[in-house]
C-alpha cells in the first residue's frame, strides 16, 4: 500500500511540475505568430497617397484646410476595414530645442488596440530651394574644357528627328555646370583652329589639352577645309577617301589628350562640310557630306595608337540587339539625376578586340558588355587620348553621352542642407488591427 501511496505522491509532484511549466510556457496568440506587416502597410499607404505629391501638398496646408478632410477620407478608403490608424504630422525644426513640433493628428479610433506598428515619411515643401554645387572637372588641374561641335556648316547623319544644333544646346545645358569651360565650336574653321591647338574663345579657363570634344553630328564628323582636307593630311588620294582625315583626328586626340565622344551609330562613317562638299552627297541624298565608311574609324584608331596610316575598310561593329545600362551607370543615374531608358537597341557595337589591337583600356562601361561586343563605353589609350563610342541605333539620346562622361570623370555634387526650418514635415502613420485574436 505504501508503494501505491508513493506513486500517487510522485504523480502529484509531476502534475504540479506540468502545471507550473504550462503556466510559464505561454504560447503566443495567432496574431503574434503570423502578424500582418503593419509597418510595411503603413509605409506603402503613405507612398500611395503621395503618388502625385498630394500628401506633400496637404501636410503644408493650414490645419483647418479642407484638404485634411480629403486626406482622412482617402486614408479611410484605402485601408482595410479591420485596420485603425493614427496619422500625425510634425513640423521639423532645426533651430529650437524641440526638434519635432506636432501640427495635426487624425485618427479613426480612440486607441490602436494591443498591437500596432508605425512608419515614418519625410516630405519637403515645394517652396524649398536647395542649392546644389557641382565640382568642376579640371578645377584641380588638368583640362576641364568641354568642346561641343555645333558646326553651322555641317550636317548630321543618324540623328533623325534632331538637329546637331539642338543636340548641342541640350548637351551644353546638361554638362556645362560640370566643366570649367563649355565652348560651342560654331563652324569647321574653329574646329581647324582647335586641331592646330589654338584656343577659340576668350575664356580664361579654356584649355585645349585634356579637353572633352563631343561630336553632335552622329555618324558624320565635321572636316575643316584647307589643310585638313588636303592630300596626305586629310585626303587619301590613292583610295579617293577622306579616311585620312579621321586618322589625323586620331593623332590630334592623342596629341592633346582629348576624349572624343561619338553619340550614336558608327563613329566617323561620313565626313561633312557643306562648303567643301557642296556638290557631293553621302550616298543617301544628303549633300555636304561624303561617305568614308568603316575606314574612317579604323583610321582614327590607328592615329590614336600612333600607328602608320593605312586604308582599312573592314566593318568592325556588330548588332547585339537590346543592351542594358551597366550597374555602375545605373547607380550614377541617381547621383546625377539623369534617367535615360535602362535598355536600348545597339546595332553598331564595337568589338572587344580593338582593346588589344589599339592598346586601349575601357575605363567606363556605359552599357554592359554582351558577348564580345561593347555597345557603349569610354576607352583610354596609354599614354594619352581616349574616346566615347555609343554604338546605338538612331535616334540618339544625348543623356547617355552626358551620363557616360560623368560616370568617367565622376565630378562630385555638394548638396546644401535640406531640412531647413519650416520646410519639412515628418508624417507618422501608426496602424493597429482590430478584431480577431
Amino acid at each position: 500500500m505504501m508503494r501505491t501511496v508513493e506513486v500517487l505522491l510522485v504523480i502529484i509532484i509531476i502534475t504540479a511540475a506540468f502545471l507550473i511549466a504550462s503556466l510559464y510556457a505561454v504560447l503566443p496568440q495567432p496574431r503574434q505568430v503570423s502578424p500582418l506587416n503593419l509597418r510595411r502597410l503603413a509605409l506603402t499607404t503613405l507612398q500611395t497617397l503621395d503618388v502625385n505629391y498630394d500628401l506633400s501638398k496637404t501636410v503644408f496646408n493650414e490645419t483647418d484646410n479642407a484638404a485634411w478632410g480629403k486626406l482622412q477620407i482617402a486614408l479611410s478608403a484605402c485601408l482595410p476595414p479591420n485596420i485603425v490608424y493614427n496619422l500625425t504630422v510634425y513640423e521639423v525644426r532645426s533651430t529650437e530645442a524641440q526638434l519635432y513640433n506636432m501640427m495635426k493628428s487624425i485618427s479613426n479610433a480612440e486607441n490602436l488596440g494591443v498591437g500596432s506598428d508605425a512608419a515614418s515619411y519625410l516630405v519637403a515643401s515645394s517652396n524649398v530651394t536647395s542649392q546644389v554645387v557641382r565640382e568642376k572637372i579640371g578645377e584641380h588641374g588638368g583640362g576641364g574644357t568641354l568642346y561641343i561641335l555645333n558646326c553651322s556648316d555641317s550636317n548630321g547623319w543618324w540623328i533623325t528627328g534632331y538637329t546637331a544644333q539642338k543636340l548641342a544646346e541640350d548637351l551644353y545645358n546638361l554638362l556645362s555646370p560640370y566643366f570649367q569651360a563649355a565652348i560651342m565650336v560654331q563652324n569647321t574653321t574653329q574646329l581647324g583652329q582647335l586641331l592646330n591647338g589654338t584656343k577659340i574663345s576668350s575664356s580664361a579657363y579654356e584649355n585645349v589639352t585634356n579637353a572633352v570634344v563631343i561630336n553632335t553630328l552622329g555618324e558624320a564628323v565635321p572636316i575643316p577645309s584647307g589643310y585638313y582636307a588636303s592630300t596626305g593630311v586629310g585626303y587619301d588620294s590613292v583610295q579617293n577617301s577622306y579616311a585620312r582625315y579621321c586618322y589625323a583626328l586620331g593623332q590630334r586626340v592623342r596629341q592633346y589628350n582629348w576624349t572624343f565622344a561619338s553619340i550614336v551609330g558608327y563613329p566617323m562613317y561620313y565626313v561633312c562640310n557643306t562648303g567643301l562638299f557642296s556638290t557631293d552627297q553621302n550616298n543617301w541624298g544628303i549633300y555636304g557630306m561624303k561617305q568614308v565608311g568603316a575606314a574612317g574609324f579604323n583610321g582614327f584608331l590607328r592615329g590614336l595608337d600612333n600607328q602608320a596610316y593605312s586604308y582599312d575598310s573592314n566593318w568592325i561593329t556588330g548588332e547585339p540587339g537590346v543592351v542594358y545600362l551597366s550597374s555602375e551607370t545605373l547607380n550614377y543615374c541617381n547621383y546625377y539625376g539623369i534617367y535615360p531608358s535602362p535598355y536600348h537597341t545597339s546595332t553598331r557595337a564595337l568589338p572587344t578586340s580593338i582593346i588589344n589591337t589599339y592598346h586601349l583600356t575601357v575605363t567606363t562601361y556605359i552599357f554592359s558588355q554582351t558577348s564580345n561586343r561593347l555597345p557603349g563605353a569610354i576607352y583610354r589609350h596609354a599614354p594619352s587620348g581616349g574616346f566615347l563610342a555609343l554604338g546605338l541605333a538612331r535616334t540618339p539620346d544625348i543623356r547617355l553621352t552626358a551620363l557616360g562622361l560623368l560616370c568617367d570623370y565622376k565630378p562630385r555634387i555638394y548638396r546644401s542642407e535640406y531640412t531647413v526650418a519650416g520646410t519639412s514635415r515628418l508624417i507618422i502613420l501608426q496602424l493597429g488591427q482590430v478584431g480577431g485574436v
Partner: protein
Amino acid sequence: MAGATIDHLVSVTVFIGAILLFISLFNQTIQTAIIYQRHRYIASKCTDLLDNMMLNPGYPMNWSISGEDPTSFGLQDPEFTQYRLSPFSLMRLDYTSGTPVYYPKTGQWYSNITVGFGQSLLVPYAQAINYSTAAKLLGVNNTFGFSLTISPIITISISEVRTNPLKISVNVLGTGFPLANANVSYCLIIVKATGGDGSYPAYTLNYGTNMTDDEGKTLLDFPSFNGEEESFVIIAYAHMSGLVGVGYHENVRYTESYVVPFVADFENGTILLAHSWDVHEGSNPAEIAYNATFILLTEDFTLREMPLGVGAIGKINYGEGKPYQSVNISTHNPGILAITYRKSAVESGIVLMPWGISTMAFPVEFGGYSAGKEWVATDTRQVLVNGIAYQAKLALWSLEGYQVIS
C-alpha cells in the same frame, strides 16, 4: 506477502501509466511551440517574398514587354522605384480564376480575365508566366505555395438610372470607406453604327468631370443622348489625395456577333481580332465590321485617342476559311483598345481590352490554391500600377508538411 506483491504491481502499473501520460503532455506542449515557430517562419517568409516580388523588376528588366521569359521573377515597373508595379508584367501572369479560352484558328489556349461582356484580356499561355515557373524563379518550388492577389483599392460601380435621356449613377468606394468629394473624370464613347467610312462603324468621345457627394456617389446626365438607340460605354476615373480608381459600364445593342481581341505578341503589340462565334459560338452568327482605336490615359485623367495603323478597320466573319484580323498597338504606354463593331445600321456594339492591366482596373489572381492547407500566412502592401491604386495580397503556405518529427 500477497498484499505487498499486489501493492507493487498496482504501483508500478500506475507509475508507468502516469509517466507515459506526462511524457505525452510535455511532448504536446513542445510540439505546439515548434509548430508555432514554423508558423512564425512562414509569416516572415511571406513578407520577404512579397517584397521580393514587388521591389524588383525581374530579369531581363523589360521581360514584360519584350515577350521573353524572365530568368528572375519580379513585378516592379523598371522605370520606377518602390512599390510601383509594371502593368505589362501583371498582364503576363497566368490568371488563376479565369476559364481558359481556346481559339481554333491559332490553335492556342489563352489565359482569361473577363469581368463582363466585352471587357476581357486574353493572353496566350505560351507567353503567360505560370505558377510553376514563377515558383521556381522565386526559389520556393516544392517548399512553399503562394497565391498573389492584386486588386484595385477603389471600386467604381456604374449603373444606368435612366436610359432616355441617359442618366448614369457612379458610386465610388474604397476598401473601407466611400470616397466622398472625389473628382470624377469620365469619357462616354458612343458607337455610331452608320457614321464610319462605308459600312464601318464610328464613335464619338464625350468628356466631362464631376464630384462625388458625401456617400461617394454622383449622377451624370446626358440630356441629348438616348441610351436605348445606340451602344455606348462610359469609362470613369475617380481621384482624390493620390488615390485613383477606374470603373466602366457598357450598354451594347447587339451581342450575337462581336469582336474578341487576343493578345498575340507583347513586343510588337499585335492584337488578333477574332469573331465571337469562333471562340464562344452562340446563335445567329453574322459577318461584322469593326473600327478599332487606342485610348491613352493622360496625366490629368483625361483620355486621348491614338489612331491605329493597318487593320484598324475591317470585317471579320466566322467559320473555316474566314481569317481573323490583326492590329498593332505601337506603344507600351498603358491604354485601352476600344473596338466598335456593327452588323447593321441598328445592330452595333463595343468591346474593350486593357493594354496594361491598370487602365481598366482589372484584378490579378496568380498562384496556387490554399484550400486545405494547415497554415496560411498573408501579408498586404499598397501598390501603384501606372498610377492606379491597388492592394497586393500574398498568401503563403508550406508544402513540406507540418509534422515536427520526420
